[in-house]
């Protein structure tokens, strides 16, 4: 009989302890919350210790980034890309047009009308960065973190947003620099079509 009441008491007591624990967790949810609302919040990025100097080899390839101000439109990166995720279109400009220079003091001769990187296709091989004469296409992170703020987990709600358009040329600029085709050539085109 005493065991019966002892069991009863211990059952009630342990139930109360358990309910206290859950209630405490409920009210301290702001403190104890472990869920991260992922696309809006991100964990702080941990420091990486990989055993050798990062400057020797860029192991951190967070995202392929392009600095359009330094681009000469040489198309070398697009040719180096094994998967063809870089699309470059350039346009000849009339003689004497000043398009400025890159940071390496190379004169820009072509107008880059399109520079798209499709990050859904990119396989982070880093091959496009070596041929670039101006070093304007690079992987963010690692030794390049001074060039561009670290950009990782660039998640999007729409897949189309993962195609990054780097070209800044407006339609007005294209119209301004377009060389009018010679009239004879125009006639030939009409006839052939």
């Amino acid at each position, binding site marked *: 009989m005493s065991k019966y009441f002892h069991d009863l008491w211990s059952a009630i007591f342990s139930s109360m302890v358990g309910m206290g624990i*859950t209630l405490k*967790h409920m009210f301290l*949810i702001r403190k104890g919350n472990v869920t991260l609302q992922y696309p*809006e919040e991100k964990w702080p990025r941990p420091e990486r210790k990989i055993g050798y100097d990062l400057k020797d080899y860029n192991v951190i390839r967070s995202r392929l980034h392009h600095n359009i101000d330094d681009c000469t439109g040489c198309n070398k990166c697009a040719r180096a890309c094994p998967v063809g995720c870089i699309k470059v279109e350039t346009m000849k400009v009339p003689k004497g047009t000043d398009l400025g220079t890159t940071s390496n003091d190379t004169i820009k001769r072509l107008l880059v009308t399109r520079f798209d990187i499709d990050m859904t296709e990119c396989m982070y091989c880093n091959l496009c960065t070596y041929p670039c004469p101006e070093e304007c296409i690079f992987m963010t992170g690692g030794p390049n973190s001074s060039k561009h703020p670290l950009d990782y987990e660039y998640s999007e709600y729409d897949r189309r947003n993962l195609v990054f358009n780097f070209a800044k040329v407006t339609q007005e600029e294209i119209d301004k620099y377009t060389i009018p085709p010679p009239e004879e050539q125009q006639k030939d085109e009409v006839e052939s079509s």
Partner: protein
Amino acid sequence: MTVDVLIDWLANLVDFPELAFILAVLICAIPAFLFIAVYALVAIYGELKISSFMQDKVGPMGQGPGLHAGKWGLLQPVADALKLLLKEDIIPASADTKLFILAPFIVFIGAFISFAALPFNQNLIIADMNIGVFYILAVSSLGVIGLIVAGWSSNNKWSLYGAMRSSAQIVSYEIPAALSIVVVIMLTGTLSMQGIIQHQDGLVWGILPNWIIFQNPFTFLAFFVFFISGVSECNRTPFDIPEAESELVAGTFTEYSGMRYAFFFLSEYANMFIVSGVAAVGFLGGWHSPIPGFLEAPGWGLFWFLFKVGMLIFVMMWFRWTFPRLRVDQLMNICWKVLLPMALLNIFGVGIWTVLAGR
């Protein structure tokens, strides 16, 4: 507002007493159904959030409609309801089709018609019967038949196990629940819900409100016996062996999908409301405010009743996310060896207390 008043009023307007009866019942039943539906949405949202918070999660969250489920996931229950509405209605080939279709309605009707006797405030009661408590106890256990029918007609071993377990459980736990309500009836001397509440007016022990739970130690115990039995009658965790997910897939509801499953779900939440409502009326003073004479207007009466019911439903959810499920033998052990002796002790104790203390 009672249904009798409506019937009389409509009978004066039209010459058909049958039509007046049907109209009056419809006028009472449709708001009750809408109330259950809205309350179920709120309760589901509350359950999602409470369960998440107790497990250190945040529950449904979102930035706005379209993305996830609205601000703080407020649209999550709406999305759930829509999903259930749009789902394919599957009837297994080997099922007993007629009974399979009938079962959810039996379960829901058992929960739904109990609302007729719940007093929401001083005037707002569909039918203030002179056997109100008895009616609710009788009608709310109709759901067992529906569960057995559902389990049998599904032609599935898990469903049948669930049905057997739930019938054993609900029939067993009816006894301590009913014996605890007997304590209330002994003290108030009436079976009418409004009569029971009107009895709990004023103060007791000089400071506490004159609710039955505070009137003597035995009624205090009786409240907990009734509430635990009530949780069990609703098939809520820790007494959810009829639909034990980890053992029986979904128990009685294994073969149900879409709207039919939604009706079981709705009746579970309606049953929670009824058990909490009877506990609030019988032991916690119904629509009386905690401070006698303070905020006692009918509007506040509705608030106090819903507040008490809401707190009891919160406690049920709290139980669910605290305690692990009981084994079948442990469940029966608690019912017959702990709650039933306690309920009998309460009856004797309250009887002796009433004789000695004179109230």
